[in-house]
């Protein structure tokens, strides 16, 4: 579970930065970043090189593309396609649920936005595995929904162990990551711009389409990445809510590592990283400040 966009709301809005580089008046602060640089090279950059090495070699240290080509295996290809489909659907649902919510929260006159953030983040304090398991209780054949349906003599719903259950789990787990970035950009939109649009005769739909939506786009893009990447790569949600029959690409990779087939697992991870890189590239295109200023 990652909370990335929370920071924006927890930390107060920064006033326009008056001073550029060297702002603190401290010279020679570069050495302060040495432990960090060493750490990041050692535990971020080198590990990625190691995974690249494993993905491109065989057990006998020979160069090969077979590990990457194993994605073309029908079973693996199907799991990738299913993962793409499910994460796409979950991302769309999250967006449709989160945007109106963020707008309502923004409109509510509640001044303490830390309270709103708190309420949305609070569920994360209960272990996410447990929360997902609780959905089994709700969706099961003898679960809460079906008990209620049976009471009213309605037909039973068969959701557990289907792709729908996995989508529900994804939406449930990652919805906060869509709400928070959108909410964060919405509260920063200058009310005068909206008023100006209204004064100039735009109706509320035009104001939304021409002003609010374009200005909130960075938050939307950020939210999409934050939901899409973890949904695409999950193996836990599909494991708990999908039963053993539904296999996503995350499950395949996890399984390869569990049985000790590290080279094939690394190769498939590299394929997965292509999709992650694409999302990162799209995200950085909209994060023009290059400092994460608008995103974090």
């Amino acid at each position, binding site marked *: 579970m990652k909370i990335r966009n929370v920071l924006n709301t927890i930390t107060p809005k920064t006033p326009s930065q008056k001073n550029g580089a060297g702002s603190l008046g401290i010279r020679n*602060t570069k050495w302060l970043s040495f432990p960090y640089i060493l750490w990041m090279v050692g535990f971020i950059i080198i590990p990625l090189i190691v995974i690249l090495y494993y993905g491109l070699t065989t057990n006998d240290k020979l160069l090969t593309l077979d590990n990457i080509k194993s994605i073309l295996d029908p079973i693996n290809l199907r799991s990738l396609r299913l993962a793409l489909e499910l994460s796409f659907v979950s991302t769309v649902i999250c967006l449709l649920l989160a945007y109106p919510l963020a707008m309502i929260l923004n409109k509510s006159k509640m001044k303490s936005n830390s309270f709103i953030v708190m309420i949305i983040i609070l569920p994360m304090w209960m272990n996410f595995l447990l929360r997902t398991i609780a959905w089994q209780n709700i969706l099961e054949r003898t679960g809460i929904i079906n008990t209620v349906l049976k009471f009213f003599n309605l037909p039973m719903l068969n959701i557990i162990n289907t792709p729908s259950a996995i989508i529900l789990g994804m939406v449930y787990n990652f919805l906060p990551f869509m709400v928070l970035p959108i909410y964060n950009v919405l509260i920063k939109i200058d009310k005068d711009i909206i008023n100006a649009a209204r004064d100039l005769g735009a109706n509320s739909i035009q104001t939304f389409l021409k002003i609010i939506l374009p200005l909130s786009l960075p938050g939307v893009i950020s939210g999409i990445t934050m939901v899409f990447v973890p949904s695409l790569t999950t193996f836990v949600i599909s494991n708990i809510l999908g039963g053993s029959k539904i296999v996503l690409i995350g499950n395949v990779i996890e399984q390869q590592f569990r049985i000790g087939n590290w080279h094939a697992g690394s190769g498939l991870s590299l394929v997965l990283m292509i999709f992650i890189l694409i999302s990162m590239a799209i995200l950085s295109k909209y994060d023009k400040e290059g400092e994460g200023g608008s995103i974090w």
Partner: protein
Amino acid sequence: MVKKFIERFYVGLILFFLYAPIIILIILSFNSSKSRSKWGGFTLHWYKELFKNQSIMNALYTTLIIAFLSALVATIIGTAAAIAINSMKKTPRTIMIAITNIPMLNADIVTGISLMLLFVAMRYTLGFTSVLISHITFNIPYVILSVMPKLKQLNPHTFEAALDLGASPVYAFFKVILPDIFPGVLTGFFLAFTMSLDDFVITHFTKGPEINTLSTKIYTEVRKGIKPEIYALSTLMFIAVLLLLVLINRRNADKREPIKKV
């Protein structure tokens, strides 16, 4: 009026969606039946059993120690790095921020696997330290990103003034800069602590067979059924955090009150 009602209803519905599983888990912690799907009557039995269950207590202990240590180390390294990044020129700063973003945007499964492969390649035995190192790695960015905005708000002249008045740079840092950025440092620490506490995927790949955090312990029990003690423990943890947040919120509200009256 109707619009307002619909809006309220919508927010309520989403909150219900977010909190329903938590309510279920809390109810299950009072369920005297061992089965997840049967209600056997109210009991406090699992709360008593919890403290006798050595393996759960061990997992809790490991989880808390790793969360605390990783948050602490990440806070120190991250705060120092944030100060350095803040005074860098544009290009190196952009590069540093980009590297900081990698672990936040990358998928947990890839981060976990890449770290595991590194440890194995270095012939480093997977265990407590490997988990700790991994947690520090994904925690540092949270600290940097919560300290940076505070640094931008700082008035650079106070530090210079302190130096002019004869303070050593280190003394001036602790007396002038640190108090000002402290809220950001604290946010970073708590965020890092939370992330570590809640992580499953990265721990799953980088841990050895002999240690368990709460997350990995729960995962091993998914198939055979979760022990009710776990529900009791997470209910206690959830309530503790809830109380803590309510207290902090009320203290902040009290602080704000006098200003409003003036």
